[in-house]
């Protein structure tokens, strides 16, 4: 089945960008009408976890050894970082993961034809580049969110410090 879904072209991305923007805005406003106060925190559903498990190694490049243990660590570092953000922002991130993982938006907006575990790294890299350079601010800011949430916590973790030549803080005081 998957093979009959054409890989989206640049053109479909731009179209999808427009509809995606509308979809994100709609998701946000439905959400806001429904719950004016104290949104719940972000929950890492299995679908979100599988999307992140696929995206994180592409984002981090050769900074991550692609073993299941490392990938799980990258995902849980992202989860920890999200849990410290304002609940309102956590909800925006929840919406972003809904967009990344729902079949139609994943296929046409993100350009990943198959489920995330079967996504090819080159397709993921292409999606990240497309969002990064999108002319739609929402896609650009979604790219930045993924960039900062995956890359920041990865390098904040002590296990990555030796690889970048950072000795960490003075041990006597840390």
């Amino acid at each position, binding site marked *: 089945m998957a093979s009959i879904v054409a890989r989206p072209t640049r053109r479909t991305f731009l179209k999808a960008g427009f509809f995606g923007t509308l979809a994100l805005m709609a998701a946000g406003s439905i959400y806001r009408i429904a719950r004016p106060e104290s949104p719940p*925190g972000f929950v890492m559903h299995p679908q979100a976890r599988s999307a992140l498990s696929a995206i994180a190694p592409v984002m981090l*490049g050769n900074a991550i050894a692609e073993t299941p243990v490392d990938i799980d660590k990258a995902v849980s570092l992202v989860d920890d970082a999200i849990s410290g953000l304002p609940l309102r922002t956590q909800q925006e991130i929840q919406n972003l993961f809904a967009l990344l993982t729902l079949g139609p938006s994943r296929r046409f907006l993100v350009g990943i034809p198959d489920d995330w575990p079967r996504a090819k790294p080159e397709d993921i890299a292409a999606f990240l580049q497309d969002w*990064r350079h999108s002319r739609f601010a929402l896609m650009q800011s979604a790219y930045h*969110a993924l960039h900062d949430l995956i890359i920041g*916590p990865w390098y904040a973790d002590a296990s990555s410090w030796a690889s970048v*030549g*950072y000795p960490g803080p003075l041990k006597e005081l840390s």
Partner: protein
Amino acid sequence: MAKSASSSPIPDPIQAGLASGWKVIDASTLVADREVEADVAIIGTGAGGGVTAEILALAGLKVVLVEEGPLKSSKDFKMHEAEAYPELYQESAARKTRDKAINILQGRNVGGSTTVNWTSSFRTPGDTLSYWQKNFGLNDYSAESLSPWFTMMEQRLHIGAWAAAPNENNDLLRRGAAQLGIPAAAIQRNVKACWNLGYCGMGCPTNAKQSMLVTTIPSALARGATLFTRTRADKLLFTGDKVHGLSCVALNERGLAPTGHRIHVRAKHYVVAGGAINSPALLLRSGAPDPQHLLGKRTFLHPTVISAALHDKKVDAYAGAPQTIYSDHFLQTQAIDGAIGYKLEAPPLHPLLFASTMSGFGVQHAAMMKQFAHTHALLALLRDGFHDESCGGTVSLQDDGSPVLDYPISAFVWDGVRRALLSMAEIQFAAGAKAVYPVHEEADGYSSWNAARKAINALAYEPLKTRVVSAHVMGGCTMSDDPKQGIVSSRGRYHELANLSVHDGSLFPTSIGANPQLSIYGITAKLASGLATDLTGKPPPSLPLL
């Protein structure tokens, strides 16, 4: 994230104060609503709130402080970004403008941004004050008339010359500028017995930084002030032209959600000092009278852009006092109200902030990270607010009552961004960089000044493409004795309300053109001393010396 009990060999003045009986209530632990009465309620414990609290407590007034963040101290400051940012900063150090194009660093803890700033101390520049006198009628805000207040706070907070040599990251700015004949100078710092570690941004683990956390706030608490932490000021309540109460919500331990309990504060006088963004937001949420629609307008950021450079020699930009050299050449070589100028400084680099700031992903980003120890960085802070095409941003409320800043970057400001990236690249090559990386999604690393100049001139200057950050939010409660121009008088009094003052960086009618902490200390010391006299009928107290 192991939370060790106090393993630090450093004596902790906060723990000692708590043991001595300071009145500190962590609202996350409240099991019922609370009511409290005082002479003065101060909202916020940063530069403005801290200075005000000490002066009013010394004047014998009963003070209550309300702080949204937690009370942390040297025993908690472990120099780990992953812990420090969520605990000590607004929105985990990821607060953003509405379009998410500008990342904003602001403190959220007892001590506010002073707990986590990089200690750079400058008096308000004379040309900024002249502009205020001329354009906002702030006649008694001259360099001369403010000088005694700056002197007082410099003494109080041990602000002075930094004796140690600059670290390599700062010395590269000095050397590169010198090569080009660009003047650079040393930055004064508010430190005492500093260990030169380089982790100021994560809270000082040795209590060397003379922030509000270890100076004015302990002084106020020792004089009987009450401090509520994890307490968000929700609304000021008005009767006629007076504030008659402050309603606050208790936040949970992580400071993310209300617990359901409230704290009601009743005072004779109220001082708003929540910082730009949060101070105008509180007043907007409260429905404070604002006939000219000025609240939240003219909010400035010193929009800041970054240039990284690779060197053969190690730079180790994480190590040593973070900012010790600056250049005002590009502020001073043109009129303050002409093309936008910028101040150059060298920021500390730590893995999380550096990794998330550098653009790109995959092997290209990983390769940049491998050069972390060899990377030098400069930043340019643009002096916004002095031109019709740089009128700042606007704070407004979202549907849940939380604030958001719209800050459109005008073509006038983008022109300054481009010139700033050029200046930084030229200085970095002059200092011996083998490659320069302007932080921009479409930029690459350039191995010569010529290549960098061509590329920087050709970049598209747009939000979300150029990395723009800010650690200096100012304005939003403009100060002017003309109620058409400002909502707060030159004495810090809210024009429309009899017993309300604003004492923080939100007063500034423009940006400062320098790191703002000492401007806030000096100006709020003057305002708080005036308020002490107004409330007690006695001369203002003098501050204890270190």
